[in-house]
């Protein structure tokens, strides 16, 4: 039963991160747009720094999603194996 709860928890986390991911991409593009339009050198550097942060957030989220998906796959396999043993 615990596995089922953990599977649901992981699915929920993957769902939330998947939905958040495009927002990081959009934020990165937003700051890059501002950087390209900025005439002031200091402002441009700041926007590039912010865009970079958003890009790193996106990479972090992608890695986290990948990790969680791997955990989920392992749990699901483990759940199926348990089922087989119970039958026999």
């Amino acid at each position: 039963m615990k596995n089922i709860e953990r599977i649901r928890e992981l699915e929920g986390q993957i769902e939330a991160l998947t939905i958040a991911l495009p927002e990081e991409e959009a934020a990165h593009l937003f700051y890059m747009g501002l950087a390209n339009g900025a005439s002031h050198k200091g402002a441009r550097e700041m926007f590039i720094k912010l865009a970079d942060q958003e890009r790193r957030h996106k990479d972090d989220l992608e890695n986290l999603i990948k990790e969680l998906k791997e955990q989920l796959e392992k749990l699901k396999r483990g759940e199926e194996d348990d089922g087989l043993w119970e039958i026999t």
Partner: protein
Amino acid sequence: MRIGKYTIHLHPMSVHFTNALYPVSLLFLALYLLTKEDSSRTTYGYIITLAALSTPVSFATGYIQWRQKYKAAKVRVFIRKIRLGIALMAVGPSCTLWYWADPGFLTRGGMEVFLFSLLNLTVLPLAVTLGYLGGNLVRWRPH
């Protein structure tokens, strides 16, 4: 949806038509059943037709947004929206085709009208749930 350097929010734009037209069509159906005014029945026919025509547009724009923005991620919220969208694409046009097959049948009353009204009512929870799930995506809240 990206067209060149512009981001056009086609799905949020199109679903507002679908989600408004279905409840309004139900309103005119209810008005007809209460008052027997022919103008309400005719209005229902036109509005349900527009609603049914708008549904595949809403579905298609949503599908494209799912593929482009969310990379076709198979997570619960999108699976539910796709299933409910398919159901709405079945029910909406069914109501429309049934009506236009014989627009006068509503005047005769009886079991046929009762079943027709029930079918129309099923549109409401579908449209409301789709709107609710979509709204949650805008400001992400788990459901």
